């Protein structure tokens, strides 16, 4: 996209940066992580987040503008808590150039595709490459095939998803925001894979 994001003039004072919060907070028992969701428009990124954060599912599609920010804390079995600060980005093409704004400094990136759309799987691979190039070097990557409840319309096989994920060292899972299948598992698995601060 040809839209630049230059500053109109120098009138604005310096503001505190988005990266100022480190990706993983130092407290070993109470982690705080920045997580970003990426993927084509309409694959269900917002639905996954709203299912995870609020336990809701709204079938009417609401196009995300820019990015929404939500947070949710989960407790793990080893009595640590993980607070996810989630950037739910818009999938529209016009926001693609602005994605670095949101994934910069992220500890976790969840790349989502729709199992009923090959195009969205191709788009997911684009995001994986982009993250490998420009994301944090130790970023945790997850590949998510959403809309798993629509088996009859499946265009991307589990095998394809799994193979691609393994090849790129990603965690792979298929979810359904509609039925809540695997949504909590997704975030719990991510939490387990987070690099822990040494000693405690």
């Amino acid at each position: 996209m040809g839209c630049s994001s230059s500053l109109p003039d120098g009138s604005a004072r310096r503001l505190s940066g988005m990266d100022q919060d480190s990706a993983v907070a130092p407290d070993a028992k109470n982690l705080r992580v920045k997580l970003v969701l990426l993927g084509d428009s309409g694959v269900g990124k917002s639905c996954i987040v709203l299912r995870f954060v609020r336990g809701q599912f709204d079938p009417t599609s609401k196009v995300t503008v820019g990015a929404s920010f939500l947070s949710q804390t989960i407790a793990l079995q080893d009595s640590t808590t993980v607070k996810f600060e989630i950037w739910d980005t818009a999938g529209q093409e016009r926001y693609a150039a602005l994605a670095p704004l949101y994934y910069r400094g992220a500890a976790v990136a969840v790349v989502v595709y729709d199992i009923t759309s090959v195009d969205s799987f191709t788009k997911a691979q684009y995001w994986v490459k982009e993250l490998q190039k420009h994301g944090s070097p130790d970023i945790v990557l997850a590949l998510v095939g959403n809309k798993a409840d629509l088996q009859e319309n499946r265009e991307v096989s589990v095998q394809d998803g799994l193979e691609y994920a393994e090849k790129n060292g990603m965690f792979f899972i298929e979810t359904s925001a509609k039925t809540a299948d695997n949504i909590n598992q997704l975030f719990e698995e991510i939490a387990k894979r987070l690099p822990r601060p040494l000693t405690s």
Partner: protein
Amino acid sequence: MSAEELSSSASSSSDETLERDPSFKSAEGGGVDERLGSVRLEDEGDVEESRSDRVEDRGGEAVVESNGHGGDEGECGEESLVVETEVGDASGDLGSGVGGDGAVVERDAGEGDGDDGGDVPVLKTAEVVGSEVVGEGSRPGLEVGSEWRRNRTRSNSEIEMDDEQSPSSSGYAGERGSSNGAASSASDINEIVEDDEIREVGDVDGANGGIDSQSDWVPGKRHADEDDASISWRKRKKHFFILSNSGKPIYSRHGDEHKLAGFSATLQAIVSFVENGGDRLNLVRAGKHQVIFLVKGPIYLVCISCTEEPYESLKGQLELIYGQMILILTKSVNRCFERNAKFDMTPLLGGTDIVFSSLIHSFSWNPATFLHAYTCLPLAYATRQAAGAILQDVADSGVLFAILMCRHKVISLVGAQKASLHPDDMLLLANFVMSSESFRTSESFSPICLPRYNPMAFLYAYVNFLDADSYLMLLTTSSDAFYHLKDCRIRIETVLLKSNVLSEVQRSLLDGGMHVEDLPTDPSLKNRTLSPRVGHDSQGTFRESAAGIGGPSGLWHFIYRSIYLDQYVSSEFSSCLRSPRQQKRLYRAYQKLFASMHDKGIGPHKTQFRRDENYVLLCWVTPDFELYAAFDPLADKGQAIKTCNRVCQWVKDVENEIFLLGASPFSW
């Protein structure tokens, strides 16, 4: 605010006023001049309004789709085509180029009026508005060269017919439609009706147009299944198109953009034909239809309308649509066309149909779209001050604009030094936020561009809804200010809750603003500060008894626009204007009045008085303010003038509560 008084006596009017508007001379004195003037005025008003009556009233009637295209062609035969262009000389070429000598080419505002001048005598203020009606019906100039027009129009419709056979003949068929298939055709707001005979069932256009029924309005794309081959599509009253200068469709209000590739190519061909002659196409009149063109670099915007709105208004609407597009993409999208002339822009606007349809809907209920001013939610002075103080606090920490709004009304806003926010930008920003559902689910951080501030660059907007109606927008130039803005929001929200601003806002929403029934009856009560309704509710008994007759002297409604503040205040609708259809009609009438008062060709006017069977409209423009008032059609002129003076006094008395004073960024 000025202490000027609108005079109802001839003696105190200046000569200039008399000349410009004899009908205003005297209420009681009623000279011959005045009668001539007002009679003429009324006649024209009648012509015009009865027309729009026919259009509106039949909205609900059954469809009689008798003779589809045949009918179209027949109609075309009787229609006339007037081409208005901007650059003078080349227009002759255009005329002969298209094959006739009879083209009525309106070159420029001034020249065009020259054409009208033939059948337009003295009464200038009235004529501005009236002439359009005359023009479409019986303008003498149209008789000449009708042969050419017939040919021309027919060839036009032939083009369309070709398209019908192969709608995608240009070979362009995109895959990624931005259409929102969720549109429900049952509860839509069609502006159907192309000619008088054919109506579509369930045209509830008017019923959904009112300010009170905004919630009834179903957002999203209408009739996504239609294209230019659909009869229903061709009968829509008002179309808006965005296309590229290579003829690719970008947006269409009705129907699927991608199926309209052929139609877009036709529009593009018309524009470039005229441009090749070194001229520019502004307006084509074809019978009741106006086709308005706006060229913005590689982007063309076109409106096809038979709503009888003035050219200036429709052009203003195209400007706003363009502004909305810039708000989403910035003007740097032009570079995509420099790189690739055949660039397809629809994917870039994916998911924004709802933003455009909501803007277009607001053209029929939101006076800000033609007043170029914003309006505030009525609040006690101290309440607004409290909100302003905390916003100012935040703005001092590096926020460019801090805006607190309730629906489409401003609670308070603050700008950093030297930064000023244009009312049109506020309108577009509020429309963008209000129409995009995702802002309501959580806090958001999104790039947006303010076209009047800097069309080339993105700003970053932190948006958060504090409750169902009130939302905070913090704009910054810094792309990584999110966490700072989030902290600002938490501070602001805490203060607003502590000082009860949000509950006051909810109460104001319930109470409404200025009710004409509450207009102070005693003009000597100069120091009145509060109407019972503004700020503090009390169900006055007078109001109850007055239900059904509006305010004093038959006052039904008014809009007061402060030039200095860039703000307006609109009264609540009296019971006489309860139906959304009536409200929409009144807005259209105001809009026409506004256009006529600001017509550069015939100079600024001070007053205008119009009477037709729907209402008496009175408009008064001074260097400080503009007043638009609607009265009962039988209202006495002298009384109406006196009432307008009282309205102005009333507005002045309560300005602390209805306007945002002082801290506004406009005063830098």
